């Protein structure tokens, strides 16, 4: 079973590496939006205010970058018959879904994590907050990947990317947005309370990472089996 798990991750990464737009699109969008903010504000506010705005704004950029790449998750697999092959295969679908989620996180979220030093410098965020930021960002991108996968699974029959997917995910993302921005603000002001926010975020992430893949699996099975 572990072989098929690794095989799917390799299969997905191989596909992404052959058409690198899958890697590039979310990160390019993320960089573009986060770079434009300091440019548009710089003459009116001082550096401390920029740090506060930037620490909150970054979570909206993360959300939008994930929404942008959401359509690549299951739609091709649904339309080219890959999902049928997966449903019929002796490998349980839940294994494949977990492998898919991991590879999607590597393709879409990891590049965002890697650019952290850049926007830290752009927003003049305090250096001692760096590790804390990585932890919060890691948790929330994992959660966001699972939520996006749920949205993608439920709208897999739609031919085009619709606003529906965004609307499906948004209510789920709001708690993440609140916790993550509270935590990052507290972190920038060097208040120890950021740890408790991060604990909550990690708890929600663990819960969703355990439950949602089962929901995604049954949604995809239902979508494949409905006529």
């Amino acid at each position, binding site marked *: 079973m572990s072989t098929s798990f690794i095989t799917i991750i390799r*299969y997905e990464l191989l596909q992404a590496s052959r058409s690198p737009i899958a890697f590039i699109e979310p990160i390019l969008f993320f960089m573009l939006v986060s770079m434009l903010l300091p440019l548009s504000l710089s003459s009116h506010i001082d550096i401390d205010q920029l740090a506060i705005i930037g620490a909150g704004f970054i979570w909206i950029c993360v959300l939008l970058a994930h929404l942008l790449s959401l359509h690549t998750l299951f739609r091709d697999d649904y339309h080219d018959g890959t999902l*049928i092959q997966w449903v019929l295969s002796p490998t349980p679908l839940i294994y*494949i879904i977990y492998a898919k989620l991991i590879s999607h996180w590597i393709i879409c979220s990891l590049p965002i994590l890697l650019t952290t030093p850049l926007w830290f410098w752009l927003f003049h965020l305090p250096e001692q907050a760096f590790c804390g930021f990585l932890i919060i960002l890691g948790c929330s991108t994992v959660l966001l990947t699972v939520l996006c996968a749920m949205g993608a699974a439920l709208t897999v029959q739609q031919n085009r990317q619709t606003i529906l997917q965004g609307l499906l995910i948004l209510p789920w993302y709001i708690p993440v947005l609140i916790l993550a921005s509270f935590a990052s603000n507290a972190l920038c002001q060097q208040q120890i309370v950021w740890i408790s926010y991060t604990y909550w975020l990690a708890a929600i992430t663990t819960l969703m990472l355990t439950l949602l893949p089962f929901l995604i699996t049954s949604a995809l099975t239902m979508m494949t089996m409905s006529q």
Partner: protein
Amino acid sequence: MLQLKQVQSERQGRVLFSNLSLNLPCGTLLRVIGSNGAGKTTLLKILAGIFELTQGSIACLPPLHANPLFIGHELAIKPTLTPLEYLQTWQILYNCQDISRLDQVCQLLELHELKSTPCSQLSAGQCQRIALAKLWLTSINFWVLDEPFTALDVNATHLIACKLIQHTQKNGLVIFTTHHLPEALEDKTQTLILNNPFPKDTE
């Protein structure tokens, strides 16, 4: 053995077929024929367990495998990957034991020169061959094939036809659709005719 009892299928409020009862023992080669839109693909997907039934029941009795090998119109081939990568992944996902056989099969189906060409550069017939290579790799004894001879040349058609006969001789069950039956299969197949060119409304 595959048992169908009073199977009915609807699609968008139209009854495609109803009261379909069949007993298919292992070793049967069943060809489903019917005009376009008669419900051949739907029936095949029902038999494969992909579509749910609106009425009736299907029982898949041992030694038949519950999940068939299904090759449909959508070949599930990714345009950026090579045939070799595609088939290797498929083998691992379907727990194929004999991984070394892949080379021989590629040789047999004349795919060995295309092994590292991206599938987007291959013709429809070549893609069909890649999908049909699974017939040699699998250990599943229940095959459901939707138009397996589409886009194949004479040699490949003959090769596949022989493989189907060989499989039924080994007590496998094959259900397929085709509009043009290869000569080799002519006296070996049983035929199921779906004849419902103008499906009436359920109301």
